[in-house]
């Protein structure tokens, strides 16, 4: 597993306590998991997606990632409706291990963009990890 100083935590996304990230892309927000999350989970073998059109509250479970011997639930960083899922991950879940930031999981139409501002930046997230 990576040491904390080996983690890749880009500054252009925001983070949650549950190790998801969110990034505004035009009118939608892309959601994925952090380098820390993919590293902890190890080889990801399956992504359980929500359906396009489903709506979730901030912090609500919207899917899960599976490794061989663990399941990690995914919680939505901000409320909204799922407008797209990353179909590439269905056949190649390992893409998340390869680059967890390029390989987003879902795209949402946010219900309240101000929730985005409440999320942690990279520095705050690192502080949390250092505990």
């Amino acid at each position, binding site marked *: 597993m990576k040491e904390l100083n080996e983690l890749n935590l880009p500054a252009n996304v925001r983070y949650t306590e549950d190790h998801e990230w969110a990034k505004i892309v035009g009118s939608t927000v892309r959601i994925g998991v952090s380098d820390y999350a993919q590293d902890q989970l190890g*080889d990801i*073998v*399956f992504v359980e997606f929500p359906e396009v059109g489903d709506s979730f509250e901030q912090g609500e479970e919207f899917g899960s990632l*599976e*490794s*061989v*011997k663990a399941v990690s639930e995914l919680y939505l960083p901000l409320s909204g409706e799922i407008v797209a899922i990353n179909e590439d991950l269905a056949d190649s*879940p*390992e893409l998340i291990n390869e680059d967890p930031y390029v390989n987003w999981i879902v795209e949402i139409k946010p219900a309240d963009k101000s929730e985005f501002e409440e999320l942690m930046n990279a520095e705050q997230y690192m502080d949390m990890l250092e505990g």
Partner: protein
Amino acid sequence: MKTAPGASGLIMNEPLLWEKGKKGRKGMSIPAADVPLATPEAALAGAGPDFPDLSEIDVIRHYTRLSQWNFGVDTGLYPLGSCTMKYNPKTNEKQAATPAIAAAHPMLDDEYVQGTLRIMYELQQYLINITGMAAATLQPSAGAQGELTGMLIFDAYHKSKGSKRNKILIPDTAHGTNPASAALCGYKPVPVASNAEGMLDVETVKALMDEETAGIMVTNPNTLGLFEENIRAVAEIVHAKGGLVYGDGANMNAIMGIVDLSKCGVDVMHLNLHKTFSTPHGGGGPGAGPVCVVEKLARFLPIPHVKKDGDTYRLDWDNPDSIGRVHGYHGNYGVLVKAYSYILSMGAANLKKASQLAVLNANYIKERLKGALHLPYDRPCMHECVFSDEKQHELKVATLDIAKRLIDYGYHPPTVYFPLVVHGAIMIEPTETECKEDIDQFIDTILLILQEAKENPQLLYDAPVMAKRKRLDETLAARKPCLCG
């Protein structure tokens, strides 16, 4: 140190069944037709499955070769924690195969099958006497189904009291199946953290137990191999709030003839006949998970229940409060006969001795290995002891590497990464049927492996090299599932 048993013998290759055979071969005789051959109407007729055709010797060689790639208790030490891999006596197999018993049909009237009913009746009595409970059912097919039966009895009991409960307390040192079994009864598991000694804490239980909680599921001895010393106080708290205490008896092998579960405050418990009572695990089953209860819960047990009137045994169906059936017939009957045979062979004194020796073996391993492996809870243990790989972290050697290296030396690895409360757990349960010299050799082998970890960890990373296969790619298996050939 004597030479470890691990070696690579003459192990044959063998393809999959359908990669061999020739159309038209037959592996068993089929009687000639003595009635006119008939065929079903065309609309219903099917072509039959695409199976390979093999001769008898094709089948014999196929499975004989496969068996040589396997390791069982008869092959060597199998110290899987929580699994009680004791010797499986051969006479048990013979008794279960007694022709009149093996051929008994389960739907015939009681008068025709007195022998098979008698075995059930007597086994029920024996299990009651061994646990200290008041009544038993033999129907559950395995420990997990026993748990489900127990939870359904909880539900039925609370309903009979006009109370609806929706939570269940489950200690973090309980078996992994417990939450899944409780979930089928709509009980939300509430985790109970164990204390610094690895024990259930009375105050913690007191804080969590309320009148919406159905009760608690306790594994005792727990999965750290420790006897829950506060069990009576815990049971009193649960009972005071109207709850019930479930005892997961998977670890009964430590306490036969020593502990009376009803005195501990346990209301419902299951036994694993395939652990404590020496029936073989069969590479995954069948097991048997009889459930024993205290008097007040006897009316909820599954139907039918064997009763004895004078010299006659009968199936009693008349029990309106019963939770119903959990098995199509009488449970994994053949397994029940094997346990019956074991109990009769052992008798009371030897059952107690078995528990004493199982506990002696585990404590002996604990004492001899605790300098070399980290022992998170250094207290007298019951039938198993739990170490971790903490001391090996700096060598970049993990529990899995130690486990895989044991294979090369001819030992089945212990249970690893369970219980979850111990990070990198190595859970060793030797059982009473292993003698001192074999245990010494096993301990010496672990010490040797830990030495290898310091000097040449690559030996551990590469292990196993002596088995039929090297480490298998479980990630590939899960990413691209191939479940059917």
